[in-house]
């Protein structure tokens, strides 16, 4: 397949994932903002930080819901805003139009200019329904890809982009949880933690799944285990790494050649598999997460190199 098309598929999936993650983050922000003592904690800043774009809000200023909805939902100057992501996903899809099924394209094309017609106050008023709309768009797209697309290299590039984006979102959320949501005076495992962790689980659509695995209690160790190491939860870092290894291996098969990225992802899987949550806290959650983010960034660059992305 054309290198440009491979790149389009990879980024199409990343932007769709990012649109959904950002929508989920906005829900998390709303949940956390209504928790007791929220106004002390600059909850909305943590939401922005999870998207990796907090440099737009200098330290010392207060970040409001209105700022964040504007920035993450509507702002075309923010490359990670939902509106930007949906537009860029569609542009990538349009460029790789022949790789997509009609249903996939329709899922992207249906209402692609919807957010153009919203101003900030309307978007805030209708935030829950807009978030649902975004999630539905992404899920429809994913379903169309799952049920209709040929399982060729194009599909693998799509899934690689999706798994990489997901792994990074989970890593960033964990990082924020560790740094931002925990006031210095609080002890790990305190009761507010409990609500904040559940908000994070909600943001990753894993709150019910968590209970099925660990029962009724929340502990930082179990939550870390769930989000980092669980091989069944599709947003855990370990699951995403497994997916990446599987998909990159398939791509190596299509191309009759292994590349650096195959070795890198296999090393990442092995390293993560050797950890348990106790070990992670001994090394430091922050350090573990940071090295995961660095490794996944490196992986992205190696994929681009292996398949001659522009």
């Amino acid at each position, binding site marked *: *397949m*054309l*290198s*440009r*098309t*491979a790149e389009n598929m990879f980024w199409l999936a990343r932007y769709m994932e990012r649109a959904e993650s950002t929508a989920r983050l906005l829900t998390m922000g709303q949940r956390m903002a209504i928790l007791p003592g929220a106004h002390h904690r600059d909850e909305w800043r943590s939401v922005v930080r999870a998207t990796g774009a907090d440099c737009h809000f200098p330290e010392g200023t207060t970040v409001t819901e209105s700022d964040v909805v504007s920035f993450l939902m509507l702002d075309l100057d923010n490359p990670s805003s939902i509106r930007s992501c949906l537009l860029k996903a569609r*542009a990538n899809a*349009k*460029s790789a*139009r*022949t790789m997509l099924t*009609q249903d996939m*394209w*329709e899922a992207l*094309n*249906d209402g692609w200019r919807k957010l153009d017609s919203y101003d900030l106050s309307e978007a805030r008023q209708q935030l829950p329904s807009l978030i649902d709309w975004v999630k539905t768009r992404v899920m429809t797209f994913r379903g169309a890809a799952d049920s209709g697309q040929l399982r060729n*290299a194009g599909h693998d590039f799509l899934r690689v982009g999706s798994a990489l984006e997901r792994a990074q979102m989970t890593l960033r959320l964990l990082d924020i949880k560790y740094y931002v949501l925990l006031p210095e005076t609080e002890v790990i495992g305190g009761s507010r933690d409990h609500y904040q962790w559940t908000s994070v689980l909600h943001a990753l659509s894993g709150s019910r799944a968590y209970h099925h695995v660990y029962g009724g209690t929340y502990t930082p160790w179990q939550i870390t285990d769930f989000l980092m190491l669980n091989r069944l939860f599709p947003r855990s870092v370990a699951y995403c790494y497994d997916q990446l290894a599987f998909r990159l291996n398939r*791509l190596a098969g*299509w*191309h009759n050649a292994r590349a650096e990225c195959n070795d890198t992802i296999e090393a990442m899987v092995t390293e993560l598999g050797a950890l348990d949550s106790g070990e992670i806290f001994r090394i430091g959650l922050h350090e573990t997460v940071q090295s995961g983010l660095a490794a996944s960034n490196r992986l992205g660059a190696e994929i681009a190199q292996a*398949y*001659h992305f*522009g």
Partner: protein
Amino acid sequence: MPFHEMFEPDGSVRACYAEVQNWVERTGIAGLNRRLDEAEAIFRRIGITFAVYGEGGDPERLIPFDLLPRIFTAHEWRILDKGIRQRARALNAFLHDVYHRGEIVKAGVMPADIIYRNSAYLAEMADFSPPGKVYSHIVGIDIVRTGPARFEVLEDNCRTPSGVSYMLENREIMTRMFPDLFSDGLVAPVDDYPAELLKSLQEVAPPACKGEPVVVVLTPGSLNSAYYEHSFLADLMGVELVEPADLFVDEGRVWMKTTLGPKAVDVIYRRIDDEYIDPLVFKPDSLLGIPGIFNVYRNGGVTLASAPGSGIADDKAVYIYVPEMIRFYLGEEPILDNIQTWQCSRPDELAYVLEHLHELVAKEVHGSGGYGMLIGPKSSKDEVAAYAERIKANPSEFIAQPTLDLSTVPTLGPASVVGRHADFRPYCLVGKQIRLVPGGLTRVALTEGSLVVNSSQGGGVKDTWVLQD
């Protein structure tokens, strides 16, 4: 009174439209209008849109779709089919001739100036024969109907005629929404067009091609107004849709950049203009284009469809001579007539045009898309006078034709079926053999009395049925 393709002057329905008439009565006008909204929603969701240059507003606008089909009987189609193929053969023969010995000029049938001093003539093509001597692989011929048995050619399109995706999608939408209309198999299918196109392109593979020819569609990119069509055709042929940056030249071949590394390309159905193909030969400042591709082409390393320089055959000044070409190259009488045309470059014809401009249609020789033309009877005195000044300033740039009594086709109005002027563009495929699917694109001027059918100026499209015996 123009010829109405559905109704006789006494108001009775022509036999070929009986089925449509029943359907309209059964569904009712209001019912049809509701279904029209549904059709538009489908078009938009599928993404069949086109961009209109410089008009602002919705960058991906829909071409208005009209539900009522335009119908040709099997007998009418036999005439059209023959006439279209004949014209496509003559145009290709002409192209080969003007880039070689120029027999038609030597024989005194056409003046040399009109060809060799024409900006559409590409000297770089001289003495080169493309595979199969085919220059224009897809010939779009714009035809109007002026009477029950009278068809006339408005213009030829030998470069990259667009719109065939509408022929296919209009039919697709109609069969999706109104399957009953097609259940008795009276309407000839058109859906093998992409397969026929692929065959035609494979037949003109270059000498360097070994094995199954690799065909690609070359698009300027996803912002081009016809991008939907480019991707649609690539999709239905099952070939790659490439942009110029996906291609490069090396070792006498053209390669596309794939995840497996470079892959040789044999035939390029290019949807970009001549001047943007190769910056080394044409526009040095062009950012588009594949440096060196023209040299590879001339050396038999790749086939370009259409051939660069094909535009000389659809030039409006050359158009006048197409009936002569048919006689000269094929030794046949033209089946489809040309429209009478006055060349302003000739002093006597110029005088006639200036005197009668208010009753003529005047066009720029190199214009297209319905821009820059004057429809005398529909223009004010001042407009006519201003246009006359433009002609006088540069007579050789203009031609004029009589205002035709174009037929009208049934079109869905808010309260009734109304008659609107239409034209017709079939797409004739030329490879080793000539292929023509029974159908084409009918464009309709949706405004009452209007003669301009171009989509860029408010024209719409409708399905075209060729009935089978």
